[in-house]
């Protein structure tokens, strides 16, 4: 016990980030001379934006004349709404290979009741690293077995997980069972069990829904037979339509099965993953099912598919009129790398997706799919002042993010990497291998 305690202490010390959360916005701010990427209303050149009390008051031209407050000229810079990662284990994981730092997978396959935000570690080193590149909001997702739990949309700054939560719950996450049927001879026996096991797995999900509905009935009718069951309780917000079920599926048979299942169960769904979604655009469009596409940086699923299939899928979804957003890979291995989110969108853009759609696919489209577009996702009056300033197009790797605000709070853009960089630069300045004075 003591050992575990000290290990925990050790890690929390090791992994606590040094950045201090920003204080609430206490005065209005106007930026002028900027290229403002509103996402909702196009790009405004040499424009101004005013925000106060954490909200955007005004976006446009000649605002500074109307408001007699100090203005900050950022000519030549660009302002973007905070980028939104639509799914990772951010805050639930620190070092992938170290078990003690993994908090994303609860035991068992049915965990609809677990909540991501309660174990979100606001001091994770990965958080400042991610926001340094403009990722200001991120969906934190539990990942275990079949029904993995409820996700939370987190702001990438805050003293506690409660401070950092923008929205909870966002979705209930269901990892659709494999629908694969082995084709090979050796796997003949396995094949039978494949077929059976996929039917059983779907039945298990159906059973869970049926039980949850029965549970809801007992609860609503204040039945004397009602006894609490946390797992079933966790299902209720989906049954009542408060949140959608986020179904993780990549292969075409999985996607179809999931869509028809949601239809049969009369549940609102969001498709996550969607590697084969280009094969089912009509189905997705007809039923208005949004897709969180996470596969831009992946190889084609099959040997005979186009070399650039994963890059062109967003364009195909766009052309077909499917509602979609782009996100980073869901794999926990990629969680430390969600800072590369804009480059997933950029890749899609260089393979056909219109450039402004690419930006939308990591901001407003994401906000819409996560149900938070009233608050974030674009630079519009009344929305939260969650935005950042960069020296160029955020979809280009060479661009640097210079300042960032979450709900009007200016956040610290230093991070572990910058700190170590600075530290070792000093080493080489001290021993004369790098020119220039020793910086502090």
């Amino acid at each position, binding site marked *: 016990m003591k050992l575990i305690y000290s290990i925990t202490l050790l890690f929390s010390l090791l992994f606590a980030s040094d950045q201090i959360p920003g204080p609430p916005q206490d005065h209005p701010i106007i930026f002028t001379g900027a290229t403002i990427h509103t996402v909702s209303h196009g790009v405004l050149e040499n424009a101004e934006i005013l925000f106060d009390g954490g909200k955007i008051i005004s976006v446009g031209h000649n605002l500074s004349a109307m408001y007699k407050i100090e203005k900050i000229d950022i000519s030549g810079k660009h302002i973007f709404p905070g980028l939104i990662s639509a799914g990772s284990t951010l805050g639930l994981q620190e070092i992938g290979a170290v078990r003690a730092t993994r908090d994303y997978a609860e035991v068992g396959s049915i965990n609809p009741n677990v909540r991501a935000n309660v174990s979100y570690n606001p001091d994770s080193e990965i958080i400042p690293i991610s926001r340094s590149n403009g990722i200001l909001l991120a969906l934190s997702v539990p990942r275990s077995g079949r029904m993995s739990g409820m996700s939370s949309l987190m702001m990438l700054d805050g003293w506690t997980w409660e401070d950092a939560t923008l929205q909870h719950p966002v979705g209930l996450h269901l990892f659709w069972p494999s629908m694969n049927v082995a084709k090979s001879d050796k796997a003949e026996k396995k094949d039978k069990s494949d077929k059976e096991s996929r039917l059983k797995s779907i039945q298990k999900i159906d059973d869970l829904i049926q039980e949850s509905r029965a549970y809801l009935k007992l609860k609503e009718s204040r039945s004397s037979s009602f006894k609490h069951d946390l797992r079933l309780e966790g299902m209720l917000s989906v049954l009542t339509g408060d949140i959608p079920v986020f179904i993780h599926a990549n292969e075409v048979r999985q996607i179809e099965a999931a869509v028809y299942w949601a239809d049969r169960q009369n549940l609102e769904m969001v498709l996550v993953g969607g590697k084969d979604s280009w094969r089912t655009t009509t189905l997705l469009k007809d039923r208005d099912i949004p897709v969180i596409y996470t596969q831009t940086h992946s190889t084609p699923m099959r040997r*005979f598919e186009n070399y650039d299939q994963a890059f062109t899928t967003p364009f195909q979804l766009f052309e077909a009129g499917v509602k979609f957003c782009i996100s980073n890979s869901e794999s926990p291995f990629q969680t430390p790398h969600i*800072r590369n989110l804009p480059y997933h969108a950029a890749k899609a853009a260089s393979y056909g997706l219109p450039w402004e759609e690419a930006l939308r696919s990591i901001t407003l489209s994401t906000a819409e799919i996560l149900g938070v577009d009233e608050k974030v996702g674009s630079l519009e009056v009344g929305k939260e002042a969650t935005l950042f300033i960069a020296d160029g197009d955020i979809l280009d790797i060479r661009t640097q993010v210079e300042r960032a605000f979450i709900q009007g709070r200016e956040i610290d853009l230093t991070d572990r990497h910058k700190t170590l960089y600075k530290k070792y630069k000093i080493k080489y300045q001290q021993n004369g291998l790098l020119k220039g004075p020793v910086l502090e």
Partner: protein
Amino acid sequence: MRILFLYFCLLSLIFNQIEPVDGLRENPPRVWALTHAKVYIEPGTYLGNATIVIRDGFIENVGRDIRIPNDATVLDLTGKTIYSGFIDSWVEISTQPENTIPHDAHWNHKVNARRELYSQYQPVKKKLESLHKMGFTAAHIVPDSGIFQGQTALVQLNNEGTVLISAVAQDIAYEVDGWGSDKYPNSLLGVVALLRQTLMDATWYGEANAITKQFPKFNEPLKGNRDLDVFSNWRQENKPFIFETNQELSVLRSFNISDEFQLNSWIRGSGYEYRRISEIAKVNPFIILPLDFPVTPDLSHPYQALSYSTSELKHWDLAADNPAILIDHGVSFAFTSHGLKGNEFRKNLIRSIERGLSETDALAALTTIPAEKMGKGNQLGKIEQGFLANLTIVDGNYFQNKSKIVSTWIGGEEYPVLPKYDTDIAGEWKLTMGKKWYQLELKKKNNSYSGSVIQDTTNFKLSKLKIGGRFISWQVTLDSTAGPSRFTGHILENRMEGTAHDLQLSWSALKIGGLEKEEKKEEDKENSSELSVYYPEGTYGLENDVLQDAKSILIQNTTVWTCGKQGKLEGVDILFEGGKVKKIGYSLNSKGVTKIDGTGKHITPGLIDCHSHSAAFSINEGTQSITAEVRIQDVMNSDDITIYRQLAGGLTMANILHGSANTIGGQNAVIKMRWGATPEYLLYENAMPGIKLALGENVKQSNWGDENTTRYPQTRMGVEQILRDAFASAVEYQNEWIDFRKNNKKWKKKIPPRQDLELDALVEILEGKRQIHCHSYRQDEILMLTRVAEDFGFTVGTFQHVLEGYKVADRLKEHGANASTFSDWWAYKYEVIDAIPYNGALMTDVGVTVSFNSDSRELARRMNTEAAKGMKYGNLSEEEALKLVTINPAIQLNIDKWVGSLEVGKDADFVIWSDHPLSTRAKCEQTWIDGVQYFSLEKDAELKARDTELRDKLVGKILSKKSDSKGKKWNHSEKKSVDHHNCLEEL
């Protein structure tokens, strides 16, 4: 002569029987004359209406008008065809594990050269019968386990299991146990290394043995090794080695090994030989060829159909052409029924004949060729005087579906295939019952009869017709007012007699004629596939396997990123000729060249990935801490689709490295992405040999779970010691050889040093001929390796990953090592907690040559934007950033003289980009290697269209075919890419 021969036979008869007789002696007559048959005395030559005289197991005489000896009993075989008994050239016999491994056996459990299969062989009646049913009378039996599996044998398929040749060949298999096994070798890499080392050891052992015997006073007695002893003799006698292959590239690999050791080698084929037929035909090996063709895949569900690759579907269409293609290319082979059951062998053989294989070639592959190859050409394979009386008797042509195998004769003894009690009664009969007579018609289809009784024009169908041996019974209703009548009877020669019980009459029937044969349906006949093979097979493959010549290309008015002294040049022309950069300048003019308008485009050198695991079948031999002997070049996979995908991202070269499972891993291979080529031609000719080392968590098995805690080392302290131990032993080994090569007198009487492939590689490191690519993370271990290297007098080539390199960049520079790192990976394991994306830039600033690598088949497709991260993190200039993936990796691989920049005289490896190469907007439009275009958007569109059409056509063809698979599952899955992505996941 004849008398002598008979005398010899008699002798052998008398002395063959060694064991005492239990009960009465049995001496069945052994003299027969088979008459009136069509006799194939050898492939392509037959005698009609001929006689074969068999005496005491041998063929005494064969011919058309020969005298039948008085003592011979005549068997009339009118209508039958007699072939020399077929030989199945590959019958696997399950080997017994040895209870106690002999003390003088080879150290490795997979080396079983000593195993003599003939001594383990036990005839199993069921197996014999199934082989007789296919027509086989003798078999080449082979073991089924191990790498060196043991000595094969040629046996008679008789009940006694007579051994004809006790040692035919040494059987070699690429047996890979996989990651689940902790015994060396568990990977293909290790298997090939063990093969090579063992073959070398065999030669050394032979010499050592001789010297020890000659100079016992100067040499300690040599530790006996039975397996090496066998090999040593085997090689001296130049006896054959058989390589078991599972696909065409594994044949080419076997050629390399066999070439290196000058082996007399045979190939156990796979059926895929047609895919690399020209390379195979060049070497022209003897192939033991299976005929297990794919079943028709079930594509009825379009989504299930997606799980079949196009190359698998093509193989379905092409497989049966393989034998004819081999013959057309002059490759000789013998058939085996390996992998096939029941009638499948004949069915598939007939399919191949319909597709152009001649019956003569097919018969030779069943008789003369295997007999000669296996050393019994003078007694097996033909029907000739003095040959063993092995015969296959068919009631027609063996190579046509309808005929049946009647019996086989093995060593003069008959093994009936069709039950002798079966009589054929199909035909027209005259049925007499009391005073009435009827017409009786009996039809036979697929071994079951149907029949009817016909009176005038009325047809009464027989029901419950049963025929067994010479018994027949049926029911028939001849009079609608009465019930059915039951008939029973006995079949005599062309006559039947019996009782009609319910009519209380007796009946008899006489055969009056046969039935008209139904014409063979023409549509059942197969045609050769109309498809042509692609190189490599499957989508995106090229249409011919001839290497393309370099083109002369002039790109005009463009931006050239030379990555050399000239830097970035705008508005220039660049000319490529003869596979080299010819000229860079303004307004160049050249005649007879292809001109490309480069306006708005950017030209960069081909990108180079200094850490990749693509294009290999095997990556980690992780069973031992040091496996310096294994070589990636032995396991190249030129068919890996990732080659094409990476070309499409502008990558032209990659450093294919062994994994990081152990401290000293295997030897690398530097390749050019020459899509369509054979493995050999992927290898870059100018590359300096290298080797993978690894430090830290992987080699101490930190993340392998709680069970892996005993392999040395388990700490970074141990890693250092294991390295010092390895290099110290390499020094000693090196000294021994130096001493030996001085050719002192003492060595004339002493055993020479044994060549050790593992230590050879380490000595090459000491000599600076092989450079180290070391997987590393933490500063302490990086520093440690530089110190160990300096103590042993060599320099580390590149540190790979080197994520804390920025902490000791000064040491790297001082030591002279390069750094090949990830742009921005971190936090996936504890040792990368301090990894920062500024690593590359900071090391560059201090003066270390840095590259960014992929270590991932996915990331390798977009290395240009990886390079851009050098600008983002640490403010490298754009030219410096691009060098991270061009000239810098070339410097690190010691190939910068030829590649990595666009300078006059260097290789014409270049990429045409649509935009600034470091911009995410840039798309790779064309990729060229050695002046040959390997990728272009236009060509890609053509290939896509071609492959889509081909696939649609094939799917259509398969859907319209009646399923022949009867619920059988797909049996030809191709797995041509190994799924490992990076140094973490590959574990």
